[in-house]
């Protein structure tokens, strides 16, 4: 069964350069310093940020910057077959690559001897969880008030039924010929996460890379929108507020 038909449409009706439906919410959790929730295709991922705060165990603290730690974890009920809750080797590797993708954007040097912890919980998985996780992590960090150079955003591209396509669905990831997840810092366009599995010629590789980056930029617009939605009231009324405060103060 081909993943892409003769008209260039994929199994879910998308064209090669279309994203799955994405919905993002910022500040979902009460107790965490920052949080974000993302629905991307059938992915359901919740991210919480704690910090900057004291590092435990203390001897891990770094003298010149904050210790940034990331835990990517999948809930046992997130996959087709129940997943053992103990961290798998895949989760350990993804925790590392996600950390390395997001850390370049954080001003860790502003908080020496502290720690910033990110917890990514995949509640339902549908292909592309690391990209969705990274995208939500940037927003959770912004929500926590952690100073950032940029909002790192991620999206994958790959090859399915011989075509280079953007944002692989779960079945395209499993049955396709290649998967290339990419994360960028949108302001500079530089890559902070790059992985690949499958078989691609040098030319196909370059095409997939560029298509993934194009997807990243599209998702970045949604990130900004999610922040605007959360903080929009403040933005619009700031000038009025300043004027009103001045008036009140002079009256008293």
């Amino acid at each position, binding site marked *: 069964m081909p993943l892409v038909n003769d008209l260039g449409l994929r199994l879910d009706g998308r064209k090669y350069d279309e994203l799955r439906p994405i919905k993002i919410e910022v500040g979902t959790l009460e107790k965490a310093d920052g949080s974000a929730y993302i629905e991307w295709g059938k992915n359901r991922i919740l991210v919480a940020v704690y910090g900057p705060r004291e590092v435990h165990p203390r001897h891990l603290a770094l003298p010149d910057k904050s210790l940034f730690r990331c835990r990517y974890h999948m809930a046992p009920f997130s996959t087709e077959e129940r997943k053992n809750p103990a961290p798998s080797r895949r989760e350990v590797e993804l925790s590392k690559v996600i950390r390395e993708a997001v850390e370049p954007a954080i001003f860790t040097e502003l908080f020496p001897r502290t720690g910033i912890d990110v917890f990514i919980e995949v509640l339902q998985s549908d292909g592309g969880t690391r990209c969705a996780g990274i995208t939500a992590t940037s927003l959770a960090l912004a929500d926590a*008030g952690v100073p950032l150079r940029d909002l790192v955003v991620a999206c994958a591209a790959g090859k399915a039924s011989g075509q280079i396509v953007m944002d692989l669905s779960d079945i395209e990831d499993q049955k396709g010929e290649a998967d290339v997840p990419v994360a960028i810092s949108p302001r500079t366009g530089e890559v902070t996460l790059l992985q690949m599995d499958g078989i691609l010629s040098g030319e196909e590789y370059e095409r997939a890379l560029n298509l993934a980056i194009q997807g990243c930029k599209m998702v970045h617009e949604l990130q900004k929108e999610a922040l605007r939605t959360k903080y929009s009231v403040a933005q619009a009324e700031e000038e009025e507020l300043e004027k009103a405060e001045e008036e009140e*103060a002079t009256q008293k």
Partner: protein
Amino acid sequence: MAEGDYSAGKNTYREGNRFYASLVGLSNVAGRTIYVVALRGCYMPVPGDIAIGKVIDLRLGGWIMDINAPYAAILPTSEAFGRMFNSRKDEMTDFLDVGDLVVAKVVAFDRTRDPVLTIRESGLGKISEGHIVKINPTKIPRVIGRRGSMIGLLQKETGCHITIGQNGLILVSGKNPEDEAAAIRAIHTIEQEAHTTGLTDKIAQLLKEKKVIEH
């Protein structure tokens, strides 16, 4: 955020000639400095700040304090007693024990060491009664108000004494629990609606209404 002949103020950073916000917040320009007022963020101690802290540990030489910051603070025994004393643990706990609260002032904080506190000035010291309200530190300026207008209103209408810690903790001490509760409710309302206009009037209204209902 901007481009040109400015200098980078709080919560911004500069690359070449362009300025970017590093936080979600409200951007502002004061003279030639661009800065961002944060909407969210942790409390970073500044020498001179009043901070309300809780004792979490005791060491030879001082008490370790939680001041709602990424760093634990130290209240040295010299800053509490004002004299050299024979620091035996039981003497220290007679004065301040784990769980006790203080109104303190930050005297030192930099990249190389944890914040240092003092309670030697007037208005500072151990807290023996009242209620502590914890709000987002970025909203503290709104609770104070322009030239103290908001805190003045709160104290006048509720009859409570209110001590504001820059670290997001506020001590409310009143003649009776109802007055304290009214002040606390008002503070939470200010935190929720910090960004709206006419807040001072709204709070005044809220407090007057409560009084009418109760009497």
